[in-house]
């Protein structure tokens, strides 16, 4: 039967003059002339996507050239994504050429340009919860399960290597009458200040975050739902991407290092206090993420004087901040709001307060198969509180870094 089938097929093919479907080779040259940094990406992720079928091929370039084989004739969008780190500062680059007709072997030139990273806080769980420790009669407060989820809200791949996260030091808010030891010529209104800078590890190519993916940083990457231990009853954070653990924290013995989860790096710690854990306030803080323009270094630390005391702080240039969310204790505390445009015009809070097992989550809707989060720089508009803190709410993708 097989032979008969082949013979019939051959007759029919001859009769119908079948045109064999050929594939083509597309060479992508990356134009790096717009990259002013002395360090350029070692390679780029190059994607060619058919605009009709939405099928895509992805390859990694060798330096600034990529060769994609097996491309069927069609109209394609060709895009690139890469990153490079210099002095601990990561810059992302991308470029796209749309509606390229591939009818034969073709060469496409794509210009690499600096990407303004569209990373946003997706969900922040800071309130902690109540739990009853084994053998205890009363409930205790629990806060080691805090987490911060960051989402790629763009259509570009963003390498998060070197991304910094911190909370704004609230004593610095009332700038009137305070003095700051900023370098001469710098305006205090261009800065916010923190006392801890945490940084995502990586050399600039290790942690690509695809559009529609999120990654999670936990205070402690443990399963906080286990019975019979001191981890409370809240969330399983044992498989998140990063945890806020440092050598100093490990040494003081209060926290357990999960060997399967990479540790965040301490970019900078102001002063000489010991870091027992990275505990942010269970009543909310002002959270920021940023890619620093200048290298994070001890010599950048400054002091501010409120007329009574002086405090060491680390300046964060507002123009470097990618996303900021201001959360507070309650509605009445909104009068203490720290900052306005362009960082966050809003102010939100979890109504049950601290240790309520509530979180704040950004709103969004699915467009073209991807969740697009609302980002109007007004947390009142953009966020809502949740009574069920979740990792990757809405089924968003996780990066494949492990």
């Amino acid at each position, binding site marked *: 039967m097989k032979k008969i089938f082949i013979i*019939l097929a051959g007759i029919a093919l001859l009769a119908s003059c*079948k045109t064999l479907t050929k594939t083509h080779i597309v060479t992508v040259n990356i134009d790096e002339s717009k990259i002013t940094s002395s360090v350029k990406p070692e390679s780029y992720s190059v994607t060619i996507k058919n605009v*009709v079928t939405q*099928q895509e091929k992805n390859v990694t370039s060798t330096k600034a050239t990529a060769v994609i084989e097996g491309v*069927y*004739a069609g109209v394609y969008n060709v895009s690139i994504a890469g990153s490079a780190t210099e002095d601990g500062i990561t810059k992302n680059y991308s470029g796209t050429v749309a509606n390229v007709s591939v009818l034969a072997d073709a060469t496409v030139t794509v210009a690499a340009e600096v990407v303004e990273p569209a990373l946003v806080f997706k969900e922040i769980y800071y309130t902690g919860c109540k739990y009853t420790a084994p053998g205890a009669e009363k409930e205790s407060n629990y806060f080691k399960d805090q987490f911060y989820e960051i989402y790629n809200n763009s259509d570009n791949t963003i390498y998060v290597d070197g991304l910094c996260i911190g909370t704004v030091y609230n004593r610095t808010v009332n700038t009137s009458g305070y003095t700051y030891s900023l370098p001469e010529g710098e305006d205090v209104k261009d800065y916010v200040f923190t006392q801890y800078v945490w940084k995502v590890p990586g050399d600039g190519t290790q942690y690509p975050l695809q559009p529609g993916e999120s990654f999670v940083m936990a205070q402690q990457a443990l399963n906080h739902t286990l019975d019979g231990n001191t981890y409370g009853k809240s969330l399983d954070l044992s498989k998140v991407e990063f945890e806020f653990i440092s050598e100093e924290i490990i040494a003081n013995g209060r926290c357990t290092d999960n060997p399967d989860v990479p540790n965040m790096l301490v970019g900078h710690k102001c002063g000489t206090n010991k870091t027992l854990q990275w505990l942010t306030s269970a009543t909310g803080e002002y959270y920021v993420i940023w890619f620093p323009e200048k290298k994070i270094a001890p010599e950048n630390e400054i002091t501010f004087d409120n007329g009574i005391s002086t405090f060491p702080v680390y300046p964060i240039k507002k123009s470097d901040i990618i996303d900021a969310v201001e959360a507070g204790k309650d509605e009445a505390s909104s009068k203490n709001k720290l900052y306005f445009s362009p960082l966050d015009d809003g102010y939100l809070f979890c109504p049950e307060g601290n240790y309520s097992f509530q979180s704040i989550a950004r709103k969004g809707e699915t467009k073209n198969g991807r969740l697009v989060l609302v980002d109007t720089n007004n947390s009142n508009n953009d966020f809502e509180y949740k009574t069920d803190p979740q990792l990757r709410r809405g089924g968003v993708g996780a990066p494949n870094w492990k």
Partner: protein
Amino acid sequence: MAILILGFCTISAGAWDDDNPWRNSLWSGTGNASGLSFKPVNKYHRLKLGGVYEQGAFNLIQEGTGFKGVDFTAEGTANIKKVFLWGRFDFSNTFRDGANYNVMLFNPRPEMPFYVADVNSSNWRYQTYNLAAKAAFPLGEAFALGIDAGYDCGFGAKQVDPRTATYIRNIHVGPSFTFKWKEKNILGVNIAYTNNFERSTPTLSNINIQQTVALMRGLGNCSASTVGGGTIRAYLYKEHCVEGGLQYNYTTSDIDLLAGVKYIWERCDVIHDPTKQEPMGRTITSRIKANFGLRAAKHWADVNLAYNHTNGIEHVKIYDTSPGVNGYVIQASNVMSTYDIIRADAEYRFMPRGKEGPWAFGVNAKYYLESDEYVAPQSTLNGSFVRGGLCADRKIDIGKTMLEIYLEAGFRAGLAGEYIFTSTITSPKLQAIKDDFYPSIAAYYKAHAADVSLRLAYDIPIKKSSIRIIASGAFAKPINISGNRFGVHLGVEYRF
């Protein structure tokens, strides 16, 4: 050629359910009308009114879970001097229930990958009108010319959003020629051209809810779109078919043998939006058919073989806004999917006392194989089954009337049924296309099933005419999948 509505063919309702001189003529199905000049059909006229009802889940999912309708047929022959004429008119009005994954196509079929599908189960309504005629002109004792002609049109309407109004029209013309020598041999050749046109226009009853649909390209590969807001407009199917056939007929006083072979080439262009004329794809189909027929006093046999190969061709297109163009330009075309189908059926009938005798016994067999492939990312659908049946026919004279009882039992063995899909469907609303639609086709092919059918025909002679009342029913029960299918058919025929 006539527009057929899928449905009752799902189950066997008796191979001899339409016993008439035309159907039993060896030349009637060849497409060569000129052969009728040497082998004319006995003069007959008939009017038939029928009704059909079918229900059950054992069928292809696009065909729906139910089917009911009425049909009317007027058919007959005439001779004007030496010219033999045959003509037929059919009308049908049918309802299909629970059809899935089809927004556009009047008659969904494996060889047409370019259409719009949704995930809303829907009813459809249809009306069809078919006209067919043949004429055979003898040219002396050894030659004859013939002509086939046909005109069909139909209307369909999907009843659930996104709802669709479809119009289909076919025109067919086919000249033919036969040569006879030594009284026993007839050689025939025919060509034909058919032009098929279909226009399907989607609409919404509730314009406040846009409907997500899939623009299908073959084997589940699709792009998401919406009906509503002017996104999807009418689809046009423009098809040209050319055909060539060769027949050989050998006749003695004892037997009548006919062997024929036919080749059909079809090109169908699928176009979206009559204004913008967006090319959605093209199919090129080659069909090879062979048939063999034997008529002897006690033995009848028919064998039909068909092989279809279809290329699903996708276009690389751009919208050119240049002055004077302002329309879609096809830059290249590629064969991205192929569809191979083999159909074979054979039937043998033994009549101990000849055609008019009281008993007839028969065996029949059917084989179906489908092998479809989408090139990249590669997806495949393979399915095949074979069915065998035993049947008996008994004619009982009751006074001047006659009752004919036909009984058939068969078993279908599913040989293969596998669907492999390696692509992705981005829209969450359309995941059922890969999870339900195509897997259900594979499961249908692979199903084993037993079936039984019964047909009663009662002939009442009235002077030189007769009335024939027909009632038939069939039931099929699959073994390795759930569901069943049953159908009944009632008809009244007036022959004169």
